[in-house]
């Protein structure tokens, strides 16, 4: 089974921190993470966001002057092996 999540990248770490603050204030469930390797060879900070809220989140960024670089859709392979599945079932 494949699942998807979206990753938003920024031009600076500072903007990713403002992003986290502003969106948490508005009750969004987002999480900061390192930029996924398949997206870029840079080593900045990105945010994991739900894909369906993408447009809402981008408009909040515009409102708050948070410079968004790109939004990527990432395929999340279900890599759990039988043991992990057993544990989480």
């Amino acid at each position, binding site marked *: 089974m494949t699942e998807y999540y979206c990753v938003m990248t920024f031009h600076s770490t500072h903007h990713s921190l403002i992003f986290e603050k502003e969106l948490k204030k508005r009750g969004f469930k987002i999480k900061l993470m390192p930029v996924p390797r398949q997206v870029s*060879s840079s*080593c900045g900070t990105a945010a994991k966001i739900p894909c369906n809220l993408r447009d809402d989140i981008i408009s909040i960024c515009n*409102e708050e*002057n948070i410079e968004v670089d790109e939004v990527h859709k990432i395929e999340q392979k279900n*890599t759990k092996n039988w043991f992990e599945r057993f544990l989480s079932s």
Partner: protein
Amino acid sequence: MKNKFKIIFAGGLIGIFGAVLVFVGNPVNMGICVACFYRDITGALGLHRASVVQYLRPEIMGFVLGAFIIAKLKKEFKPRGGSSPLIRFFFGFFLIVGALVFLGCPLRMILRLANGDLNAVVGLAGYITGIIIGIRFLKIGFTIGRSVNQPKIAGYSMPIISIVLLIFLFIAPSFIFFSESGPGSYTAPIIWSLAAGLLIGGTLQRTRLCTAGGFRDIILIKDFHLMWGLIGIFIFSLIGNLILNPDNFMIGFSGQPIAHSEHIWNFLGMVLVGLTAVLLGGCPLRQTILAAEGDTDAVITIFGFIAGSAFVHNFGLAASPKGVPQNGKIAVVIGIIVVLGIAFMVAKENQRKRKLSKEAKGGKVSV
């Protein structure tokens, strides 16, 4: 899980080669040291005349060319730049001042730890402190700015410089200096150094391993990925040392190779390194890989390392096993003050700009 093995493997490769390169001729506890190697290259070019630390270390050229080749193959080579080049130059300059007072970049700090040098524990405490201070500045608004695309040829700077340096190494013209004694005279065979450099450079391009990023990501976003790489360096270097160089292994403060026990200055030197590394977005090792991928700002940072190394030795700031000279202490304090000052002013300016552009959009206008 797969990713975790990959990053531990990448760190392990550095750790093992760190031990192997000592075994085949590099100075003890200095199988790989990015700051020291730039310092040696600076000396070989005659930009400083400390006769004991002059050699064109092929490991550096290996890092660059290994990362360049892989980045090219994977289509990740991207000429870019223009994000505060001058500020980066000064940060690079002062990073080296801190590193040469501690006697090592963060990578050598880990290799020293893995060989029982407890002075590196003091350095590590300073490094983490510097990183925490740097993160505070990221939080209040410090940013080094965004980079834009650059002409292709600019992106090739570092690979071309590396090839020229390799040519100098092979034909050894009379204007290149080679140490006859001291750490600069302890050298692994060129082919070993270059092969290790190429392998490590390529691996680091894939994994983005960074000694500053490891700690930054834990503190900032509670992500342990890069830290596993650092643990890999430590463990494999420890194993490598115990197998290949058991006579050099010794736990303690005194009598450690190319090290001193002035705790305050080991600590403050690495505070300066940690602070500048976080503000620059990467330690010297990572800057080298970025430069190879076409990041011209990282090249400027490396020019900062080279200028810094030249001044450190010309002004007699560098520490030695005898200790830290008075001038070196003053330089570290000045470095910390200057870097904090720059970071503070950039952060304040960004706060002001953000406020102004918000008001211009009609966000919070108070009449």
